[in-house]
């Protein structure tokens, strides 16, 4: 867990802001539609290539279904939390790839069960199951951004034994 420096944190903050904005848009679309903002429906349509948008599988926070399914919402929210944790803590978590595989296992199982018409998770448990792979992916992404921001510094620092 190497600490981030100022150049890392700037780009990390930018990415975290964009991810947070994206999550806010997802939550805000049904609210905006509920208040009669037509542009929100167009944004919902624009997101259709990113998700199947089946209404029964989307979380409803009160104003209407979200524009992405519960699984996608969990992935996005987890990714945002992963970026935010790295930004706030100032530490670079470097989860190995197997963490991502382990974290994604419940969601993969749920997907397989759903594909074979067996009983699957309800929307909120599905959201929670997807939070974990999203979180690990967010941590990995934050680490990648830190590496990219300062490649010459990060490589020796993480590999040398002090």
């Amino acid at each position: 867990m190497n600490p981030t420096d100022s150049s890392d944190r700037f780009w990390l903050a930018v990415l975290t802001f964009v991810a947070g904005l994206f999550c806010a848009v997802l939550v805000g679309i049904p609210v905006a539609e509920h208040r009669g903002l037509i542009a929100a429906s167009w944004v919902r349509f624009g997101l259709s290539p990113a998700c199947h948008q089946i209404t029964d599988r989307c979380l409803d926070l009160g104003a209407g279904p979200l524009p992405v399914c519960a699984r996608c919402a969990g992935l996005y929210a987890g990714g945002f939390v992963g970026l935010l944790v790295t930004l706030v803590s100032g530490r670079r978590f470097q989860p190995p790839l197997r963490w991502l595989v382990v974290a994604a296992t419940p969601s993969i199982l749920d997907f397989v069960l759903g594909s074979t018409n067996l009983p699957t998770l309800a929307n909120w448990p599905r959201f929670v199951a997807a939070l974990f792979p999203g979180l690990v992916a967010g941590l990995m992404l934050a680490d990648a951004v830190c590496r990219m921001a300062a490649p010459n510094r990060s490589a020796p620092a993480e590999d040398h034994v002090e």
Partner: protein
Amino acid sequence: MDTKAPSMLLPALIAGGSLGFVSGIPISNCACCLWAAGAGFLAAFLYSKTCKKAGADFDTGRGGVIGLLTGAVFGVVGGGVNSVFSLITGGLDVESMREAIDANPMITDPEAAAQAVELFESVGPMVFILGFALIWIVLGVIFSALGGLIGGSVFKVEAPPTVADGGWSSNPPPMASGGGEPPPPPVSPGESPREE
């Protein structure tokens, strides 16, 4: 080392083309963002293998670049395949569009639905296809770039040191933690190496 960097085109075409094709099929149109991110990640993996063979560097920045390239391929192929399926299944005439919009409970605003049908009638299906493909490309590029960044971080490759002008490179690779052993001491003639 930059001069030895292999072309990114082939991994981008393989990963973006194959996963873009799969995501464009309507029945597999689930978690499309994951297909795109997976394409970037797969392209980074394939490219890291190529770099390892060629003795070239591969880092996070290059992972992001190959992710962008893969996302463009992904978007074009995915959007194209999806459009072809829409044309085959007859989903691009006005009546089919109107029925699809009316039957879609996600479209909660009737005024927006009417606008969509009106727009579809005025511009025609081809412009609609192009617009939809453009959205597909934009989303594909974004998510694939993120996948490529993660892939570049996971599958990082450092080129071996080069001998230049009779000496070692001024930027040798760092020693792996715990894995590498120091080189054996020089042995003078007639002296047998000490056994431990």
